[in-house]
């Protein structure tokens, strides 16, 4: 008898336990720390579902970058004003909400137990895509993202740009063109500076490796880009670097480079290979890696800009 079923149950209870802590924690900071731990545990569940690519993305974006976003937001909110102790909801409302949540969860659970058999699957199409237009890619996820569903992936990069535009546009009029506020207001602790100096170069190398190896093994542009973004944010939190001005030319070029190269390659595919977003068979892998390299750049720039927030007037020093 193997130990695995027990480990799965323990993992599931850990995930649920930390999620309950995240919901019930008294203050925001504790809740965010709980959420980061929850994301890392969830990454293990994804590995158990044979989804290492999703596990990497969940750990990097779902828990890591989202955690930094919420901690930074909490600090900025706290600096703006004391968050008033809001009216707590009454017992009746709590009970009613609990019943509603339990109903929704059980309905979903019932659906999961009654999923159709045999299950529908697009795996054969994805396998064909990995063999055909995405030839030479050993990682089926990358083949799906860059070949079978390339239009979605390109649009998703545009969503990231739209999000950056959305965040920038809620800034005050007077601050337009300025840089976002620093991720950390006070002087950084020495250990933080040391960590950033030691970790950032190594992390950047690992990020490039994750992107490069993503063609054949778990990894890829999202995961590599998110890691690079994390390293940039780390140096900004140690105040070794400052957020750039939002009207900087290089920043805007880097933001649009990924989707622009993707779209141009897609249009060129219409001329060269006969259809929109098709790649010539022999050159598919180099072209896909070329597009992905620019996507990594755009993701690595867009994520920290989303965390840094709208431009704000200089108030330090």
């Amino acid at each position, binding site marked *: 008898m193997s130990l695995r079923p027990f480990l799965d*149950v323990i993992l599931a209870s850990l995930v649920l336990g930390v999620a309950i802590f995240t919901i019930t924690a008294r203050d925001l900071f504790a809740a965010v720390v709980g959420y980061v731990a929850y994301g890392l545990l969830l990454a293990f569940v994804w590995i158990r579902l044979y*989804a290492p690519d999703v596990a990497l993305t969940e750990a990097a974006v779902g828990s890591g970058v989202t955690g930094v976003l919420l901690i930074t937001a909490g600090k900025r909110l706290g600096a703006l004003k004391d968050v*008033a102790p*809001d009216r*707590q909801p009454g017992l009746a*409302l709590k009970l009613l909400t*609990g019943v509603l949540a339990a109903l929704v969860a*059980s309905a979903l659970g019932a659906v999961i137990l009654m999923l159709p058999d045999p299950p529908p699957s697009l795996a054969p199409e994805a396998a064909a895509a990995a063999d055909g237009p995405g030839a030479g890619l050993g990682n089926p996820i990358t083949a799906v993202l860059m070949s079978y*569903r390339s239009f979605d992936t390109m649009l998703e990069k545009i969503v990231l740009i739209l999000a950056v535009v959305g965040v920038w546009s809620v800034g005050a009029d007077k601050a337009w063109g300025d840089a976002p506020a620093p991720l950390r207001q006070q002087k950084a602790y020495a250990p933080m500076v040391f960590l950033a100096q030691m970790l950032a170069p190594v992390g950047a190398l690992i990020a490039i490796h994750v992107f490069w190896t993503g063609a054949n093994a778990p990894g890829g542009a999202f995961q590599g880009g998110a890691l690079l973004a994390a390293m940039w944010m780390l140096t900004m939190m140690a105040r070794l670097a400052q957020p750039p001005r939002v009207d900087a030319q290089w920043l805007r070029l880097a933001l649009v480079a990924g989707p622009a190269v993707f779209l141009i390659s897609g249009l060129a595919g219409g001329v060269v290979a006969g259809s929109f977003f098709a790649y010539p068979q022999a050159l598919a892998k180099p072209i896909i890696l070329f597009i992905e390299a620019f996507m990594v750049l755009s993701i690595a720039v867009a994520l920290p800009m989303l965390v840094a927030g709208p431009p704000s007037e200089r108030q330090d020093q």
Partner: protein
Amino acid sequence: MTPSVLAGLTGAALVGLGLYGLILHPHPLRKLLAFNLIGSGVFLVFGIVARRGAAAGFRFDPVPQAMVITGIVVAFAASAIAVALILRLAAESSHVTLDPEVWSKPNGGDTQ
């Protein structure tokens, strides 16, 4: 119970928990956190669809997995916009709440 069904049920429970927090927490950032919990629960439910769709020599269906990766990044982008809106709301007004009763008072609930 197979690991994938267990993961799916965990996802369903996470959706319930997140919904509870989303409705009851008065603090907007806590609401956002709870909403992200719902999101990851939904992704997990989709994850077992990917696991069950194993075919063509794969142990999983790559298409739903790729969609979940896209989804995680888009969920983060939406969270970032929500944070920017919450911070701007706090900077422009005297209270940090989404409670409509506070906002509908004649002076915006500002008693100072």
